[in-house]
């Protein structure tokens, strides 16, 4: 299964490098939304709480633009049945999860660089805390996005359904990462956020575990 998982992720990566559909959509959304926030704020100075909130709002909506493509693209091109024929459900799930993790990490890196350039108040005072937050946040975000994308791919209203479904599932994750990112910007100690990391770790385990159980039913329906 591990070989199949990496083969599927590798196939998706090569496909993305060739078409650049999702990466372009994600990056353009990040640039557009950061520019819009910049225009709205002008000279106003904002708190770290607001900045970290806006940072994850950008990540959330940018993810909406690109991450759901992982299954929608397969269904639209008629290649989902081909994958179903040659790979186990678990290999498909973990392969897609792995690729979505890569995409999400790229997304948060792009958002971080843009924020550092655009907002002078966005200063990472606790680098380790920030890195751990965005890493765990990315994994949690990718885990939720993958299973939601699998559900959405089977539905008629693919465009709007992803946002509607993802918000309640991602709300606990967003609340936690916004809070922890604000702590990192304020320069809090790493140990002060251990409780939040436990929540993030638990969230990732719960979402991946439930997704693994549910995916077979969704994929073969």
């Amino acid at each position, binding site marked *: 299964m591990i070989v199949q998982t990496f*083969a599927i992720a590798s*196939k998706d990566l090569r496909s993305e490098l*060739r078409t650049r559909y999702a990466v372009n959509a994600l990056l353009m959304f990040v640039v557009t939304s950061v520019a819009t926030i910049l225009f709205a704020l002008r000279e106003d100075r904002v708190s770290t709480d607001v900045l970290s909130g806006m940072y994850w709002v950008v990540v959330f909506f940018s993810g909406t633009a690109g991450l759901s493509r992982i299954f929608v693209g397969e269904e639209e091109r*008629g290649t989902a049945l*081909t994958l*179903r*024929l*040659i*790979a186990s459900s678990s290999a498909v799930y973990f392969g897609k999860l792995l690729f979505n993790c890569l995409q999400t990490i790229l997304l948060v890196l792009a958002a971080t660089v843009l924020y550092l350039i655009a907002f002078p108040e966005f200063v990472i005072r606790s680098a380790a805390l920030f890195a751990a937050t965005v890493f765990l946040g990315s994994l949690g975000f990718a885990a939720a996005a993958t299973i939601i994308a699998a559900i959405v791919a089977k539905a008629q209203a693919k465009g709007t359904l992803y946002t509607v479904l993802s918000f309640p599932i991602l709300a606990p994750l967003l609340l936690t990462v916004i809070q922890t990112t604000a702590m990192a910007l304020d320069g809090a100690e790493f140990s002060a956020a251990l409780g939040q990391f436990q929540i993030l770790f638990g969230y990732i385990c719960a979402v991946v575990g439930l997704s693994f159980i549910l995916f077979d039913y969704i994929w073969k329906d």
Partner: protein
Amino acid sequence: MVSLTRRVIPPDFVCEKSVNDKSMAIMTGTIILSAQSLGKKFNRRTILDNISFYLSAPSSLALTGKNGSGKSTLCKMIAGILEPSAGSVSIRWEGQIGSAAQCIGLVAPYLNLYDEFTAAENIRFLSRIRSRMPNEKRFRILMEQVDLWKRRDDEVGTFSSGMKQKLKYVFALVHEPPVLVLDEPTSNLDDDGVRFVGNVVEDQKRNGLLVVATNDADESSWCSEQIHLGEHEL
């Protein structure tokens, strides 16, 4: 070797071919495809109901019936890409339960390859996902037989529908599957392509199991067994 007789089986049939050879077939390491009480409903509409059959290699089965009678649905369930609402399909290969990914080659209009990859990349990537790297020699022979070897480094998106159909045959045959399922086997193919399919069919009938879903009388005559699928009431 079991002598086969051609017969047309009505809806709600049971096709028990070579039942007496079942234990012998498993012992000698052949391939067996069986379906027990298969049924499929989409919402409240019954597409297939109580379909059972048993085939051991070498053998061939034609699935015929009107449009909407469930031929493609049955092909998908045999290939393991659609879950039945009732019953089950099983493949036994070398006396063990075989996975559809390893045992089945499927050519069908609804099974697409990746347009953004070249023909060679498609076969390589999909074989890697299948965990069976292609035999390069066999890949080249198949590509030459369908006259696509010179186009192996071209993106599939630039292929005509007939060329894509030929590439689907390469994809289905490159891992030498013991069970070959063909849904509308000659659609979009030119005369050379139809001849190639004829050769594939003859080879598969000799060495494995062949299932063909078609409305064409010539194509259904390739097979020794036939299942005529009927319509079901809503």
